[in-house]
């Protein structure tokens, strides 16, 4: 049996869109013994937009890093598009889940915008024409067409954040994961980001402190505190619950 067929056999039937992301009893302990995630259960449907909020140190970033296999569970399971995230499937998972980190400078290491956005598709082994097409499409999607020859270092923070987003979009993932997408942006930059995210139809998961962003882009909110899910429900209810928010070190927008 060739390896591709074996993989299919393992990932069972075509993935259920209602359970596009499945997190089952996820525990994660850092090598130094610190238990960051203490049992997380979460199901996200394809196309859903979920905000993850919580105080610093709650484990939000740690959790996000499980979605593309940078961290592997100490206990429990994570499944994306029917693929269980393991050491063996990490490459496929990363083609499916695009993770955008908080600091765009950590992600932009090419002399030109084009080359940075092209990195993912090139790594996927696509033809030069396809790479080109994807770069143009990704830049258009974030409103940075025409910036191909520019050096990322010389762009403003808002522009760099958009290019960082494009570097992940060019891989055409079905899931977008964003870590503090609006951090450092001025009000105009934030408005542009909100407008942008609303046009996406990918599954969207974002960890953020920005309550206005949450209110305007994400219909569902999950509160993560001390490595556990403290609340999971419609944004309008969660953000209206002052007591709940304050109990977890949060504020209303």
């Amino acid at each position: 049996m060739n390896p591709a067929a074996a993989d299919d056999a393992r990932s069972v039937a075509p993935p259920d869109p209602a359970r596009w992301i499945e997190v089952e009893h996820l525990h994660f302990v850092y090598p130094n013994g610190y238990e960051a995630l203490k049992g997380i259960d979460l199901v996200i449907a394809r196309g859903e937009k979920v905000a993850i909020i919580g105080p610093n140190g709650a484990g939000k970033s740690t959790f996000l890093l499980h979605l593309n296999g940078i961290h592997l569970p100490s206990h429990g399971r994570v499944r994306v598009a029917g693929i269980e995230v393991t050491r063996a499937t990490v490459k496929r998972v990363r083609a499916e889940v695009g993770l955008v980190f908080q600091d765009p400078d950590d992600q932009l290491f090419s002399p030109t915008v084009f080359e940075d956005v092209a990195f993912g598709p090139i790594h996927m082994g696509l033809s030069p024409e396809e790479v080109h097409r994807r770069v143009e499409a990704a830049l258009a999607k974030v409103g940075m067409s025409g910036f191909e020859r520019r050096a990322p270092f010389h762009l403003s923070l808002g522009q760099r954040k958009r290019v960082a987003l494009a570097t992940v979009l060019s891989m055409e993932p079905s899931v977008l994961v964003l870590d503090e997408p609006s951090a450092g942006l001025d009000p105009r930059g934030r408005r542009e980001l909100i407008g942008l995210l609303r046009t996406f139809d990918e599954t969207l998961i974002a960890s953020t402190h920005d309550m206005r962003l949450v209110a305007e882009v994400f219909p569902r909110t999950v509160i993560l505190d001390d490595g556990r899910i403290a609340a999971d429900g419609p944004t309008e209810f969660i953000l209206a619950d002052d007591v709940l928010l304050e109990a977890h070190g949060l504020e209303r927008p």
Partner: protein
Amino acid sequence: MFPAPFLLHAPDGFFSVPVSVAFWVVTAAVLAISVREANRSLEERTVPTLGVLAAFIFAAQMVNFQVAGGTSGHLLGGVLAAVLLGPWAGSIVMASVIAVQALVFQDGGLVVMGANIFNMGIIGTLGGYVVYRAIASLGRGWRWQLGAAAVAAWFAVEAAAVVTAFQLALSDTSPLNVALPAMAGVHALIGLGEAAITVAALAFIASVRPDLLQSRERAIAAGGEGHAGGLRGALRSGPAWLAAGIVASALVVVVLAPFASADPDGLERVAIDHGFDAVAKANPYEILPDYTVPGLGGTASTVVSGLLGVLLVLAVVLGAARIVAARRAARLQREEASSTA
């Protein structure tokens, strides 16, 4: 935890004490020159800069790229440091990195640190820089300069490996006919990775922050002399000659010493086996009949005495040069005074 190519960070016990001490002496002498030159040419703002950039080299050694299967290529950074910071500051930075790796992470020994710094921080940094300048001065343009950096980076890693092999052989830790091909062979490949990363890093920096490259590097690219550009500039630099002299003599002694050894082990065995008997028998040290240090045996003692001899000669030459320079300066002052009177 081995962020850097661990084949060059020798732990204690792998070089014999005489070899370790000898290389400490050479390293200290060359670093003393680096300190003097760096103190002279660096501005005050570099007090934190060297430290932060030493941390950069350390972090850069973590950056890898997949070669085949589970192996990956890494950066040592000697030539990169020398091109970005200048050779003297570069060697100080590399020596600091090696020291911290040994003291904090026990990556590399304490007694053998002199030899490790010599291999990676002097041969791999200053030596690589000399090659870079030599090749860069032969052509013009940024591409030529990058090519020079590539060759220099490869050379730095390869030369460091070769010297390490000789040190292992001299210490009787590893027979030369195994150590040399092994080290030279493996590092010929690692050197390619070093060259690729070094050039790509320089090209990136040049495209984004060209002002961060030393202005003299651009002067070299332009083929001009700059204020210290070109091979002639390097030739005029006294400290460069001094350091090169010390290093070259050390290498000569280290390489030739086994031939002078009375014991037919190591290199001489190889020589005899290959019929180079005649060379082995023409003892180059017959001038000084008892060329040994009491208490140490055979080859090691020859090396130590050889190196001490080199330093003695250098000290005499330096002393003489100082006297000559002082006399010349005094004469100039007198002439100036008399012309303005």
